[in-house]
């Protein structure tokens, strides 16, 4: 009925490009490889948009409900009589939206990189890796089958490892890549076990069947997964929570987020691709994909909610204290993804109750545009000043007008100022939270204020604050290819908020009527504006106010007489309490404890290995003794102790 099989071309083109560039690129057409990669991806992007048009407006809807269409599916491997591993393509609102987002942002990054990475020695390799990454990500969202998804999930991990570690002569980049790989692997372990649990109980790996079986309260599968339990928690909850753990790892949720800030060592366009629009939202996508099952299990969903909310808050607080602009963006990403997560968490299945689901994906959609814009803008800035540190920047607005304007748009969007894109999606999220969980709502509200604050802190530090002092040769804003994506994404950040996502993407496939509740909007917008104003007063011009305030408590009284009385109190609170009492410790804990925990783990492993080395003494008679002891240990254990 619906002929969508051409969709397979969308991921196939990047993989073909990867093979082409990877095998021959470096030798034969190094300088052309950027163009080749970009062209092939633009075809993919075009096809994706075509698909979106076709699906949403022509034939996706049957009786007012968006259907899940599986245009391509074949059994790749019959694992056992009951479980088969299929390879296929799923077309539903979720995957179609992801297709558009991924190919579009990836295309922008491809174009941007043409200028940014120009002159790199391993230019072809870079594009090959970009293509590989895009392929894996596309494969991930098109999966019909949880195994297929897991496979692409791992592939995404590998290709992001390659991209983050692209500057492999830089030790920090290598360490970051390795860390990202190991931490996400650790999370994937949860995913893997989760899959095994779900597959074991549902007796299938297919998403459709799995969801059907695990949401039907009568089915034998749900019975088996609810009744069997470990440590008093049902197998279903375990499975879903572990699957979420995988998602949390990729999406940098607390405490598995430690790889994200370090991963900023990769080339900046890569961050725009991986850490804004694609890999980091894979976790959100995963939960959304299995959402009907999550709805069936309240406790797993609750984990999602609180992890999401906490991550959103924590990341926002830490972002206030960072001085590396890419790290600020990294934490802000984490914070925004926290939004998406808890929004899924507070949602229910179907109808008005399913607002959170819609809002989450709406935010995913808008966030992709403005966050990749922010990263690319940051890339432009870094390209110009050759530094990531805020202190090396300032006053750049005259030197790079396009970057400045687009960056400002993106900041407004992420801060949630109408009518920029972020406003609409964030509004829906807050609304959804307000209706179902007040605690989360207030956390979200506070975080949104913080978001505005730290984003504008960033903005002012880069573009205002002080006169630019650029040294060295002539600087310009970058090549034509670097400006174009900024402009396009800027336009998107302005406009995509008006896309009526609620009509298309809902938990049950039925369109949802939403409207902006003006009264409700006042608070968050006011908070955002307050945050912006605060940042303005602190960072717009170079002044000693923040430092002065933080210097001494005694000066507080003196300042109290001045006209910034209220302002100063705010400042005091922000500087003294939030920065020093919460932000710094949070950042410190994040850096030393959570991160340190991982190092500790490595350390313990090494120590253990040192401890056990005596076992391997090189003396063959001791070996025989261990052998002998092993036998009799086993025999005694299993004859007398274990019955």
């Amino acid at each position, binding site marked *: 009925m619906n002929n969508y099989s051409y969709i397979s071309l969308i991921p196939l083109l990047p993989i073909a490009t990867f093979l082409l560039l990877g095998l021959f690129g470096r030798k034969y057409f190094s300088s052309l490889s950027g163009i080749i990669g970009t062209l092939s991806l633009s075809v993919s992007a075009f096809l994706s948009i075509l698909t979106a048009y076709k699906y949403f407006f022509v034939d996706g809807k049957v009786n007012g409900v968006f259907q899940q269409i599986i245009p391509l599916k074949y059994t790749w491997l019959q694992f056992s009589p009951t479980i088969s591993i299929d390879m296929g393509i799923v077309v539903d609102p979720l995957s179609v939206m992801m297709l558009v987002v991924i190919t579009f942002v990836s295309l922008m990054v491809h174009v941007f990189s043409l200028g940014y990475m120009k002159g790199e020695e391993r230019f072809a390799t870079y594009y090959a890796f970009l293509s590989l990454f895009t392929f894996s990500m596309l494969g991930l969202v098109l999966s019909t089958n949880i195994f297929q998804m897991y496979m692409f999930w791992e592939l995404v991990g590998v290709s992001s490892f390659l991209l983050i570690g692209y500057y492999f002569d830089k030790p920090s980049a290598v360490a970051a890549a390795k860390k990202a790989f190991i931490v996400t692997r650790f999370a994937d372990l949860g995913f893997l076990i989760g899959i095994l649990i779900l597959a074991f109980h549902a007796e299938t790996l297919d998403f459709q069947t799995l969801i059907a079986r695990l949401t039907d309260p009568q089915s034998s599968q749900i019975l088996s997964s609810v009744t069997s339990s470990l440590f008093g928690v049902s197998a279903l909850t375990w499975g879903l929570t572990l699957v979420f753990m995988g998602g949390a790892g990729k999406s940098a949720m607390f405490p598995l987020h430690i790889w994200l800030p370090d991963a900023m060592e990769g080339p900046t366009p890569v961050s725009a691709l991986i850490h804004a629009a694609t890999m980091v939202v894979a976790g959100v996508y995963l939960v959304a994909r299995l959402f009907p099952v999550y709805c069936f299990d309240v406790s797993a969903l609750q984990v999602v909610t609180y992890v999401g909310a906490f991550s959103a808050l924590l990341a926002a607080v830490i972002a206030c204290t960072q001085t590396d602009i890419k790290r600020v963006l990294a934490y802000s990403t984490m914070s925004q993804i926290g939004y998406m997560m808890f929004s899924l968490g507070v949602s229910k299945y179907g109808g008005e109750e399913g607002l959170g689901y819609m809002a989450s994906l709406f935010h995913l959609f808008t966030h992709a545009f403005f966050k990749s814009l922010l990263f690319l803008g940051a890339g432009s800035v870094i390209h110009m000043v050759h530094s990531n540190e805020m202190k090396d920047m300032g006053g750049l607005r005259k030197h790079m007008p396009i970057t400045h304007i687009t960056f400002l748009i993106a900041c407004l969007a992420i801060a949630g100022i109408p009518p920029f894109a972020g406003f609409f999606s964030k509004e829906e999220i807050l609304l959804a939270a307000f209706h179902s969980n007040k605690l989360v709502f207030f956390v979200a509200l506070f975080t949104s204020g913080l978001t505005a604050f730290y984003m504008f802190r960033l903005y002012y530090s880069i573009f205002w604050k002080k006169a630019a002092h650029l040294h060295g040769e002539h600087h310009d804003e970058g090549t034509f290819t670097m400006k174009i994506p900024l402009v396009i994404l800027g336009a998107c950040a302005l406009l995509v908020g008006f896309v009526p996502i609620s009509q298309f993407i809902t938990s049950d496939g039925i369109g949802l009527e939403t409207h902006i509740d003006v009264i409700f909007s006042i608070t968050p917008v006011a908070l955002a504006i307050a945050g912006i104003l605060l940042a303005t007063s602190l960072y717009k011009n170079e002044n000693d106010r923040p430092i002065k305030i933080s210097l001494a408590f005694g000066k507080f009284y003196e300042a109290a007489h001045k006209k910034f009385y209220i302002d100063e109190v705010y400042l005091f609170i922000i500087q003294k309490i939030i920065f020093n009492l919460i932000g710094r410790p949070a950042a410190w804990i994040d850096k030393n404890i959570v991160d340190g925990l991982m190092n500790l783990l490595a350390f313990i492993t090494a120590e253990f290995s040192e401890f056990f080395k005596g076992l391997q003494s090189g003396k063959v*008679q*001791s070996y025989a*003794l261990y052998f*002998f*002891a092993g036998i*009799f240990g086993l*025999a*005694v254990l299993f*004859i007398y102790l274990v019955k």
Partner: protein
Amino acid sequence: MGASKIIFYIISTFILGTGILAVTATKIFRAAIWLLFSLIGIAALYFWMQLEFIAAVQIIVYVGGIVVLIIFSIFLTQKSGDEMPKPLQQRKLFSLFAVFFAFAFTYLLIHQYGFYSSNPQPFELKISDIGMQMLSTTEHGFILPFEVVSMLLLAAMIGCIVIAMKAKTE
């Protein structure tokens, strides 16, 4: 107590006694001789069980072959009268403990199992039977293992030649 029983006890004591001496003697040549005695004792045990053929094989292969080989290698590698290095005290204690425990455990299991004879028919070992079965391909024929073992002997021989002959070729 019948004569057979007494003979059995004598043989057993002899086997175990010489066995213990073989693993504790301080001079290597003596250890080899004790081993020889122990193996002869085992041959005697086979005789006692009225399995003359096995006893003969035992004497021919073990006493005539392996022990001679061992004694040759002793001559090749050291002076036979030398005292051997003492075992490490710690390992000795530990081994003694482990072996004693393991022996007790194993024998307890064997004892508890209480082997019973399912078929009390008299056992008769005819050499011709062994010969026939060794080369038979039918039921209870052992030609295949026979061939495999001959292959193994061939391989072992080649291996020994390559490794041990090295000095002469150079």
